[in-house]
């Protein structure tokens, strides 16, 4: 499903303070995988996740999504891939503050021109799965951190993407909420067949996934 070949990424390239953030990364992720990128802070987890999600450009190498090279696409094509293929869960939730929970969850579906009926039934489905069905009319600012993170997950999965990329999803949650969230991701992975890739060094994430990909100083180990 996702294939990386000799991916290299530099920050401040050509400058004295150049950082080689990803070093010859090659890996394969298959459909339905439930795995995590792990490593210490600054090892390149988020950079690799962003490169896979075509949020960030790479300097060298190739990234394939369903056998299609995606790293060299133009801005709009990359945006289309993010919209149609990938669901993102960010560490800081990153909900749209002017939209209520229902509108946030349905945001991507609306961009994909789902019908109103499809949107309503899907929003209710994921909201009940994530236990936020009573919060649909609330604005994000009135929700707790755990609830916001669940809304972010609901938004990511509502449009049924093939892949979910979650960056430190438990970083702002307590142990109970972390455990609950990981159970939900697992449920989605089993029920919906979604491929989930985490970037995290949190033990709740590491314990929950099927496989851990370790990174150190930008290299796979």
């Amino acid at each position, binding site marked *: 499903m996702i294939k990386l070949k000799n991916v290299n990424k530099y920050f401040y390239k050509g400058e004295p303070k150049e950082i080689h953030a990803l070093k010859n990364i090659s890996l394969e992720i298959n459909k339905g995988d439930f795995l995590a990128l792990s490593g210490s802070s600054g090892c390149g987890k988020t950079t690799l996740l962003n490169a896979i999600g075509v*949020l960030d450009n790479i300097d060298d190498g190739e990234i394939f999504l369903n056998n299609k090279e995606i790293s060299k696409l133009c801005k709009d094509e990359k945006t289309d891939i993010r919209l149609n293929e990938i669901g993102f869960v960010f560490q800081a939730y990153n909900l749209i503050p002017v939209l209520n929970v229902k509108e946030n969850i349905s945001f991507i579906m609306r961009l994909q021109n789902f019908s109103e009926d499809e949107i309503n039934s899907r929003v209710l489905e994921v909201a009940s799965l994530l236990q936020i069905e009573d919060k649909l009319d609330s604005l994000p600012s009135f929700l707790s951190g755990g609830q916001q993170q669940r809304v972010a997950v609901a938004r990511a999965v509502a449009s049924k993407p093939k892949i979910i990329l979650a960056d430190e999803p438990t970083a702002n949650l307590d142990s109970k909420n972390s455990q609950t969230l990981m159970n939900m991701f697992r449920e989605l992975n089993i029920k919906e067949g979604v491929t989930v890739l985490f970037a995290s060094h949190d033990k709740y994430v590491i314990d929950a996934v099927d496989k851990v990909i370790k990174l150190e100083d930008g290299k796979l180990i």
Partner: protein
Amino acid sequence: MYKTILNIALKNAFLRKSRAILLILMIGLSMGTMLSIEGLYDGMTTNMIDKTIRSDSGEISIYPKKYRLNKEIKYQIKNTPKIIKNIQTLPGVTSVVQRFKVEGLARSATKAYPSTLIGIDLKDEEIFGQFSEFVTSGDLNLGIRGCIIAKELAKNLKLKLNSKLIFTTRDINNEIKSTLFRVKAIIQTTNIHLDNKAIFISKDKITSYLGVDKDSSTQIAIRVNNEKSITTIKKLYFEYDALDFKEINPLLKQMQDMMVIFNSITFSIVMFVVFIGILGVMYVSILDRVREFGIMIALGYKYKYIRYQVISEALFLGLAGFIVGSIVGYISLTYLKIYGLDLSSFADGLASFGMNSILYADLKFAYFSASFYAIIFASILSVFLPLRKIKKLNPVEVIKANK
């Protein structure tokens, strides 16, 4: 999808209520004031032109050749009734009057002033320009020796109602002739040429006094309801000086042009202020939401959607301001159209420019349509600079920075 974009734009446009209300009020009040000034400027010139047309020139006047350069009574239009009859049959002609004018000297017991004696038919003048509306005192029953005198001339000659005056001029035989009149009415037309010099008597009286043919005249003034009739009359009566009111009153034409320039300058200044206002608010609003836009781009929201959204936000604010401005402008213009702006304390100064002491505004649909288009244009233009910031936005940087 566009419904979603509009929904987000609407929510964001009015997210900071006090900021949005201040901007809307700023646009509304600026536009309302601008419309009032525009209406007053136009009303002022329209009023002056209207009174000049009604009291003297009509939309077009026919004079004998050379008369306007050398106002001697030997230059006459002969067979005036026949010419008038022909003119009245032309399409677009609403009324026609004939006048006989002669230059001379008016004297009261203590003062003398150069003046113009004008022979008119009061009934025709009433149809032509509602002559009775110019009367400030007295009545229009002239009797045998009655005259109507213009206000400024009456003031200069220290004449009141029923005062006597003597008018002296040369008759058709070049003989000096004087005759006595009694002031029956005083008029004010705000046409400075008339107000400083005119004495009106009956048309029959002047022709017999000067010894000229009663069917002759020095001016035929014509009211028409379309521009085409002016051209037709000019072509038909080429052997005379057929001049439209702008040619007869070049100062009025200049004033009208000047008012267009004043209005354009006022309009441009106000629209620039509106533009700066929207630009300021949109700039701050967009910079406040850089992170939000970064997230949206990361989730698959294209730059073109952000452009639609931001333009829609600016348009919502601009249109809200336009609605407030239209209401303020309409109320203010309606008031000024009905009650006018009373500048009586400057009456003398205004009269010397041929203006009324009460200025009445015009109310035209064009003011509102022009403002509408200008505000739409200013709103769209105002978001280009802030949008450049968003175009350069790297979502990864924004998300990283807010971790």
